[in-house]
């Protein structure tokens, strides 16, 4: 009996003692719809894993929360006019989390690793011929040919710097033991369950204000919102737009909205007879009620597309939005010889918002006689199917597919070249509609021949003017990112590409 009481008393003391410990801890739980695939930045293809890597590692350059390029581990940089040589002065006195010094040698180890061509993000270093060490804190990239978007390649999460000591110790297993120079240190990754990062006490940019952040995958929209409302998560992304009503009036929850660089559009199979006609493609653009699609299918969380790439990217030129004008659409269909329309197939991933949007496209195109069945499938099968098409046979099936793209380098080149150039025909890249136009190819090249923003700006302005009216796509909208957080959390920002930054995270009372 006595022993029992003692145990009980001990338990009570423990419980009481434990409470202040938890209350004093500055720990944040970040719930997302995505799962971590790897933590090796050089081998990462998804935005979510890349964003966690950014909390642990840093690159020579980085993005601020508005996707502007800022120097990070590099102090300054210079480049020549023809965009073939880029020199970086490195910041001194920085050490990796395992104590290894950050210097020119460390940069070389990382870039050389990328240049082996073995990793998913090796392509970022494709333009590079050689990396020269000038002195301990100066490196120079020599490129094979002019590549004006090279700074963006270095700001990309794929070019983050890992500790050379850790790379030697873990080899390609670095993906489960990342070590960088960032504000947080990797602590634990339980596959499929969570990734835990801990504050870096020696961070070179100053004191980190929270103790740890736990990244938890919660794929089901409703559960994520429920966790935030119940206080089991402090930050959720994405906040489903359909459920905004549930949190908007909650005094403990803030909703954050941020324009993105994710553009949504309809991919027209331009090799099919009906959709090869520019007038037909324009007619479809006139027949789409973009506002309705945004409000109903996307819960209002988007703005109408007004160019081939989103306004948050550099060199954007406003062209639209494309007006909703059924009379004009019918006129163009008649001029193209299809007054009664034709049949197509609508392809879409079965993710619910995209399926809704495709359904609305199907509903709206009936007005100009374009009808057809919807084929929906999981995202992987969808892209698998599109990338298996061949240019000489793809024309047999007139399809309209629901597409989307986020330029992960934050540059105009990556928003156009992989989608609309002839070199991007599948399986190489993502020109799934097989749009082929010499002028576009040349303008894309022109945009890369210089790193001078003025020269590039002119090329991209011309390109946007030209492509807009060619209507290779049905222009739809640009996503607005929505996150939701507990009121007392500050300093976590959603980024325009769907990633996030946690460096300034803090818990205020």
């Amino acid at each position, binding site marked *: 009996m006595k022993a029992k009481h003692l145990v009980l008393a001990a338990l009570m003391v423990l419980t009481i003692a434990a409470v202040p410990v938890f209350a004093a801890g500055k720990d944040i739980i970040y719930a997302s719809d995505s799962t971590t695939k790897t933590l090796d930045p050089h081998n990462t293809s998804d935005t979510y894993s890349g964003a966690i890597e950014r909390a642990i590692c840093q690159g020579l350059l980085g993005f601020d929360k508005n996707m502007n390029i800022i120097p990070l581990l590099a102090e300054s940089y210079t480049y020549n006019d023809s965009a073939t040589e880029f020199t970086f002065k490195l910041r001194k006195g920085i050490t990796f989390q395992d104590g290894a010094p950050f210097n020119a040698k460390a940069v070389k180890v990382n870039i050389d690793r990328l240049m082996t061509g073995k990793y998913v993000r090796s392509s970022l270093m494709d333009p590079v011929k050689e990396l020269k060490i000038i002195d301990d804190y100066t490196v120079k990239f020599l490129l094979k040919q002019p590549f004006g978007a090279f700074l963006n390649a270095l700001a990309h999460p794929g070019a983050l710097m890992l500790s050379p000591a850790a790379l030697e110790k873990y080899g390609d297993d670095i993906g489960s033991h990342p070590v960088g120079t960032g504000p947080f240190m990797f602590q634990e990754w339980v596959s499929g369950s969570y990734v835990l990062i801990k504050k870096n006490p020696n961070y070179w940019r100053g004191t980190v204000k929270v103790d740890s952040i736990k990244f938890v995958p919660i794929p089901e929209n409703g559960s994520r919102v429920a966790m935030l409302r119940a206080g089991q998560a402090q930050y959720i992304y994405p906040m489903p737009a*359909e459920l905004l009503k549930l949190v908007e009036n909650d005094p403990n929850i803030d909703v954050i909205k941020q324009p993105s660089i994710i553009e949504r559009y309809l991919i027209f199979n331009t090799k099919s007879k009906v959709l090869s006609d520019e007038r037909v493609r324009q007619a479809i653009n006139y027949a789409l009620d973009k506002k309705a699609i945004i409000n*109903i299918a996307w819960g209002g969380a988007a703005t109408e597309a007004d160019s081939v790439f989103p306004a948050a990217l550099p060199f954007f030129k406003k062209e639209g939005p494309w007006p909703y004008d059924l009379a004009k659409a019918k006129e163009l269909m008649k001029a193209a010889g299809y007054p009664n329309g034709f049949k197509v197939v609508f392809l879409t991933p079965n993710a*619910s*918002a995209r399926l809704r949007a495709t359904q609305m496209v199907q*509903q709206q195109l009936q007005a100009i006689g374009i009808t057809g069945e*919807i084929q*929906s499938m999981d995202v992987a099968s969808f892209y698998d199917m599109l990338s298996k098409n061949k240019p000489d046979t793809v024309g047999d099936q007139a399809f309209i597919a629901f597409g989307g793209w986020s330029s992960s380098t934050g540059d105009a080149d990556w928003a156009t070249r992989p989608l609309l150039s002839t070199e991007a025909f599948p399986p190489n890249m993502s020109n799934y509609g097989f749009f082929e136009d010499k002028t576009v190819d040349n303008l894309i090249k022109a945009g890369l021949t210089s790193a001078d923003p003025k020269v590039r700006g002119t090329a991209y302005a011309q390109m946007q003017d030209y492509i807009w009216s060619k209507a290779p796509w049905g222009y739809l909208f640009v996503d607005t990112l929505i996150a939701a957080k507990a009121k007392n959390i500050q300093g976590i920002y959603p980024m325009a590409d769907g990633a996030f930054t946690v460096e300034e995270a803090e818990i205020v009372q």
Partner: protein
Amino acid sequence: MAEKTITPSMIFWQKFKKQKSAVVAGIFILLLVFVAIFAPFIAPYDPYATDYSQAMMPPSPQHWAGTDIYGRDILTRIIYGTRISLSVGISSVTIGAIVGVTLGLISGFFGGFLDEIIMRSADVLFAFPGILLAIAVVAILGPGLVNVVAAVAIFSIPTFARIVRSNTLSIKESLYVRAARSMGASNNRIMFVHIMPGTLSSSIVYFTMRIGTSILTASSLSFLGLGAQPPSPEWGAMLAESRDYIGVADHLTVFPGIAIFLTVLAFNIFGDGLRAAFDPKLQ
């Protein structure tokens, strides 16, 4: 005093009448059939007509069950959905029953090697949970309602085969079958004319209950995006379409959910009633 003849169907009716809930379920099923057949005359709107300005309206005198995200009338879509659900349920079970009963008769009547093959194949099918087997079949054939019918039919076959086989085994030893054989009746005649009617009562019970299960399976497959494709007003597809709005616009999911629930329940209760009425041991 004229003597009253008591036919088996009168006995059946006497017993069935006592099952009050089964009678109600039967009436409900008749109502469903009526609604399905006359859907275009009953439904107040066009099931496919969208009206974005009326999107997600809660139930009102104009729209008894409210409108969905595209402004379509939910009641109308449920009424049209009755057609899809009933026809999928009945056709798939009918196909399954025809194949299953035939296989069961063959298996029980001939025995031996044929019996082994048929019953072991049935065991293989039994090893899979129904919905899993259906998903596998649809994965092979591709999504779509016709393939869902095939999938549900396939996993109905083994149960019918087993029920009929066991009945066949006992009936084929009965005196009247032996009499028929001694008079030179062919195997086919004995199987289908003399044995099959005797197995029907238990098949009918299973048939009815199976329709409920099939409707549920078909809806589940559509919910998973493997069955009816949008804009079809299939109940499961309607649920799938509106599950993102649970908590914000509950009427989107509640009404199709109730439709599935009541229909499946009705077929099960009706089947139970039939079983009780057919069972000679129950008075």
